[in-house]
């Protein structure tokens, strides 16, 4: 039962500043995912919340109490590590109960809570094994069990799924989400995988070079990225970007072709401004193979360089004005490379970014 508040928190190693005064309010029960490329400061931020790293400036509060100078054990948090960090010399049961034992709880209580956690995570059959005798997914579950046993105020996850294979990762992702429903605790989760971020988060915090770039719900970030970095980081495949110049309510590309300026951006798109025209693959579709509700679509003929069938849809690699872009074909039919297809671009869903600053014009 706690919210987490970061005020102007910064971290430096000597002269190198890795986190530049970030502000973040995390509500009670909220599932917040910190996401960004490696080296963006997300893990450092998490470790500062945990108390494993000192903060160089600012203030961190958990449940209203400033914890800047408290050691990890006094913050009532728990953490799941990337490599699980299970105690190799203890059985699963001892691993789960370790925190309670250190806290001096009575044996009966430790037993009960260990069993409760083991039930939630399906660990009953493995309680007397050591971590060495468990599979990757089971170890992951033990690590989560160890975190929930103590009923902490805040869960911290540091890239917990990155050591699992793709199938198990999807499975554990669902389990983590279910776990959050069940235990209703504030969760701060760090990952570099935008899919994990999108699927798990109530709110995503995108970080880059020690700054928060954008904060919002997954759909917010997907639909209204504040700059090109967010636009290309969130969503798969990444957003397509094509160089262009505003020219009388249109965007003129390098080869002279034009598309209409997205309706809601007309006011801010002054003539002659150099822009990056951005759109997602699903907004550029062959005629008859698009999303049903596409309106205000501009026709455009495209020569397909490469087709990647994914089953329910096919990704089409093509070019607009010399820039490589991806289109999507729903209800796909077989495509031959070199085929030219009449396509529709849903211009009202497109984005314009300033070519110099990368910021959205929206």
């Amino acid at each position: 039962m706690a919210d987490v508040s970061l005020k102007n928190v910064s971290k430096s190693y000597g002269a190198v500043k890795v986190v530049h005064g970030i502000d973040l309010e995390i509500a009670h029960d909220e599932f917040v995912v910190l996401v960004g490329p490696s080296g963006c400061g997300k893990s450092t931020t998490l470790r500062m919340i945990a108390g494993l790293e000192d903060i160089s400036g600012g203030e961190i509060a958990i449940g209203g109490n400033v914890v800047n100078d408290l050691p990890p054990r006094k913050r009532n948090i728990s953490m799941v590590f990337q490599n699980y960090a299970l105690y190799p010399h203890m059985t699963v049961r001892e691993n789960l109960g370790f925190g309670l034992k250190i806290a001096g709880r009575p044996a009966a209580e430790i037993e009960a809570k260990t069993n409760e956690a083991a039930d939630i995570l399906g660990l009953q059959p493995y309680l007397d094994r050591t971590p060495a005798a468990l599979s990757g997914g089971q170890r992951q579950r033990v690590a989560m069990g160890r975190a929930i046993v103590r009923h902490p105020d805040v869960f911290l996850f540091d890239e917990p799924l990155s050591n699992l294979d793709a199938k198990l990762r999807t499975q554990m992702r669902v389990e983590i989400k279910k776990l959050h429903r069940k235990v209703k605790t504030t969760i701060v989760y760090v990952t570099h995988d935008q899919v994990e971020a999108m699927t798990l988060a109530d709110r995503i915090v995108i970080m880059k070079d020690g700054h928060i770039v954008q904060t919002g719900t997954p759909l917010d970030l997907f639909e209204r990225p504040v700059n090109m970095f967010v636009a290309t980081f969130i969503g798969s495949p990444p957003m397509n970007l094509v160089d262009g110049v505003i020219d009388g309510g249109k965007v003129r590309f390098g080869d002279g072709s034009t598309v209409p300026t997205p309706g809601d951006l007309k006011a801010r798109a002054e003539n002659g401004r150099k822009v990056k025209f951005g759109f997602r693959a699903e907004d550029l579709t062959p005629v008859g193979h698009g999303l049903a509700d596409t309106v205000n679509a501009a026709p455009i003929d495209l020569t397909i360089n490469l087709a990647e069938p994914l089953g329910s849809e096919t990704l089409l690699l093509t070019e607009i004005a010399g820039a490589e872009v991806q289109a999507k074909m729903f209800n796909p039919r077989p495509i031959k490379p070199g085929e030219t297809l009449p396509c529709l671009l849903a211009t009202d869903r497109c984005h314009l970014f300033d070519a110099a600053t990368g910021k959205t014009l929206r």
Partner: protein
Amino acid sequence: MSRRARDIAIWISTFITMLIICLPGLWVVLSAFRSNGEILTRPAVWIPEGLSLDNFRSIFGFGANVVAIPVGSYFANSLIISMTSTVVAVAIGMAGGYAFARYHFSGKAAGFLGFMLSRTVPGIALSLPLFILWSWIGLIDTRLGVILVYTAINVPFTIWLTEGFFRQIPRDLNEAAQIDGCTPWQAFWRVEFPLAKAGIASSAIFAFLTSWNEYALASQLTRSTDSKTLPVGLMDFTAQFTIDWAGMCAMAVIIIIPALVLTFLVQKHLISGLTFGGVKG
């Protein structure tokens, strides 16, 4: 060569090698149970005609010919000196090894290299300066004097060995323990120490054996029953014109036995049965 012939050749060469290695030890043990007469007979008597405990009896002061050598005191000195220097060296080694494995500090690399280089100095080269220094401060012929020297000899080694074991333990385990509610001290004793036990046990054995068997320095720094250790005591069997080989061999066996017993007791810890399954796999 057929497979069988090669196997036989390997066995024979192994046997000869082991014979060469073991023969001196075997000879010492055999001689400990024989009389001086039989030991010195030429040609050598390989199969003993009669084994007896007479040599041990005379060392410990029973039986017909009592050897006037205070084996009891030497044994006590050896035990006290070896144990104390081992305990101190392991304690310092653990702290130092942990610091080198976990913390960054200036001069770390140089310090570590320095410790290892100190092992290259032959102990005997230090004996003269040590002798002068110890005689100034009155540590000649005291157990404390020998304990200090042995501790100093062992510390670089125990640091070096335990450092390697602590370095193998992922830092995450300590952090996980701290998040689970441990103080840094508890995290060390509950998590990291149990995992490094094998390394600490090995360093303890090596330190003990080094101290137990050391002769050169002890022969300079000890004088009397106050501090003489068993290896130095061996020289008591050499008189001006005679050497009591039988007594010397019996005493050598007495020196060997505790070391042997200890090694057997601790060896199961030496075989590092711990698998680091707690981290990813």
